[in-house]
């Protein structure tokens, strides 16, 4: 089974994204409530873990859901994965906040962030918030070696560039790049295997 197939096999939510997306596209405020009920907790958890300030996290959660609302027309019902898309937006909002506070706004900050386009979120586990899956994923992260865990933590929760990580860790850039690459490869392989046995 391919990785894509495996993560699609993880989709046990029973609530199709397509239906909720269509409701959002019709500008139905009730759909926003349903979206929040499904993903509000995990979006909050991701943002709080990054910014570590609940009052700021509230604003960023609000911005996250508003961004989904404003961009939902680019989402193709039946193809896209709402949860991963929303969580990527949540994480990006939080990292943007950290970068702006730390004056680390990158030079492409004016560019529309193509990484948030819904078309990139089409082959994903729609049910990443499922408790069993979360446990499997945590175990996979825990099985990374110390260096791999460190770079994933610095990348995901602090948004450090690879150059910044190299400076922080006092390691050559090439070494950091290798750790990032192998960490993601191990996660990809681990989660594929774990998903089959979950």
């Amino acid at each position, binding site marked *: 089974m391919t*990785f*894509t197939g495996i993560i699609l096999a993880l989709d046990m939510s029973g609530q199709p994204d397509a239906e909720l997306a269509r409701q959002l596209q019709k*500008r139905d*405020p009730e759909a*926003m409530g349903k979206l*929040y009920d499904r993903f*509000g*907790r*995990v979006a*909050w*958890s*991701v943002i709080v*873990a990054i910014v570590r300030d*609940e009052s*700021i996290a*509230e604003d960023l959660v*609000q*911005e996250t*859901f*508003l961004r989904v*609302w*404003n961009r939902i027309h680019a989402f193709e019902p039946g193809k896209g994965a709402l949860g*991963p898309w929303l969580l*990527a937006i949540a994480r990006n909002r939080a*990292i*943007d906040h950290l970068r702006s*506070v730390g004056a680390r*706004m990158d030079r*492409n*900050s*004016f*560019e*529309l*962030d*193509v*990484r948030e386009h819904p078309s*990139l*979120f*089409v*082959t*994903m*586990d729609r049910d*990443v*918030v499922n408790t069993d899956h*979360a446990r499997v*994923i945590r175990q996979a992260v825990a099985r990374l070696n110390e260096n791999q865990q460190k770079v*994933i933590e610095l*990348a*995901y929760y602090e*948004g*450090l560039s*690879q*150059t910044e990580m190299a400076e922080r860790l006092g390691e050559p850039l090439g070494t950091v*790049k290798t750790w*990032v690459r192998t960490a*993601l*490869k191990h*996660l*990809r392989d681990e*989660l594929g295997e774990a998903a089959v046995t979950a």
Partner: protein
Amino acid sequence: MNCSEIREEYGAYALGIAEDPERSEIAAHLARNCAECREGVSDAMATAGLIAAAVKFQKPPKHLRERVVGMVDRKKHHSWMWSLLPWGVVAVLSVIILAISIPAERQNRDLEKLDAVLSIVNDPTTKDVTFGEPAKQSKGRIFVSGKGVVFIGASLPKVDPGKTFELWVIPATGKPVPAGTFDTKGDSTAVYLYNGSTAGAAAIAVTIEPDGGSPQPTTTPFIVTKL
């Protein structure tokens, strides 16, 4: 660069930590719908996205749901806005109070301005972004619709004589578009309405410029909010 030269950076790109030239190259490949890069980045995003599920789950505050839904529910819109923006309310109310105590001609102009402000704030398609944080200088909220921009700022920096604030609409590509100048009311707060096109806007920025404004920014923006 061709796809094979940037393939190893798909993961870093998905995590938002890739750097130029690879980042720009991958973005360019995606922009021209390169099938290989699109599939590779999408796959990498799947892996990166799963990391979110490894986070320790926490309960959000109960009122947050109302705030989120209230943004798009006209029936609840005012309640969350008022509760969120005490200083914003003061600013808007000050416009109303001012309107009551000034000559009729100016009163009409200000009421038109207030009407334009509220039509942008109340539009369900309006993008609503915050900037700054409670403990820092320059905080506030920016509302952006197709009709224009409402900027509400507090704790803005003092500007030297002969200088003013200038708002910019930043397109995804191309040069910043000047969107008018404004000053604080002397208490470091400002409410500014820009009635103009925001088509293609990717960000809103504010700089300090010479009186009368500049055709292009001459200083580094002290506020940049991505939309």
